[in-house]
């Protein structure tokens, strides 16, 4: 178990969660679908790849855990983290803000 790792309920993780929600909503508000896609899609792809890589390479997993340990749940050390889900949700919601794609 890595030092500094917490399992649920840390203040840092909740603040991180709320700040991400605000950033996400702001992105949806201000940016068009194209802008959101251009900026966030590469970030999401990078995060997705890093999540896959850390699954198979313990050294990389430890490095990511050292950086994001305070905002990760203990069980997320060995599986994909909620941070990825949050970033993906943000990216995809922002991309939905294009005028022509608001509704179906």
């Amino acid at each position, binding site marked *: 178990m890595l030092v500094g790792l917490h399992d649920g309920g840390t203040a840092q993780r*909740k603040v991180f969660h*709320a700040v991400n929600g605000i950033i996400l909503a702001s992105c949806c508000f201000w940016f068009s679908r194209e802008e959101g896609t251009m900026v966030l899609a590469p970030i999401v792809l990078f995060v997705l790849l890093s999540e896959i890589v850390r699954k198979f390479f313990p050294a990389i997993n430890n490095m990511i855990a050292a950086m994001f340990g305070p905002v990760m749940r203990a069980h997320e050390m060995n599986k994909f983290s909620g941070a990825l*889900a949050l970033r993906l949700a943000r990216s*995809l*919601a922002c991309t*939905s*803000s294009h005028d022509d794609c608001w509704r179906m």
Partner: protein
Amino acid sequence: MLAYVGIFFYLAGSLISWYFFSKPIAILSMLYLGFGDPIASAFGIAFSTPWLRASNGKSLLGTLAATVVCTLITMACFNNPLILECGPVSNPLQWPEYVRWSVAIAGGVAAGVAELSMFGMVRDYLDDNAIIPVVSSLVLYLTTEALGHSL
């Protein structure tokens, strides 16, 4: 079990939100995700009463807190002229009061219940970060359509 299988369900759910919901609904659902989930967790920890917990460990008080907060977030958005910048189909500022409260409560309850609904295989494979925006978006959309005031 592959722990990362859930991400694919998450992607599918997010893509559904992306394609099917409007900008105001997407913003509301992301605010639910940002505030409802941490507040539910904080309340669940602060008021850790065993008999008020569901079998999946989720606190009913936490769910109630998330519901109230998400309802208030929705009303705050509906009362803010900035929402017009999102290009809603109809103007929430001109909706009857009962419609605004109905939509706000529906959205809040959806976010709270989505948080609470992490049972069994759903919990094994999905993250509530994925469920909350999709479910709340769907409920907001259906509620506004049912009440004749598209968002």
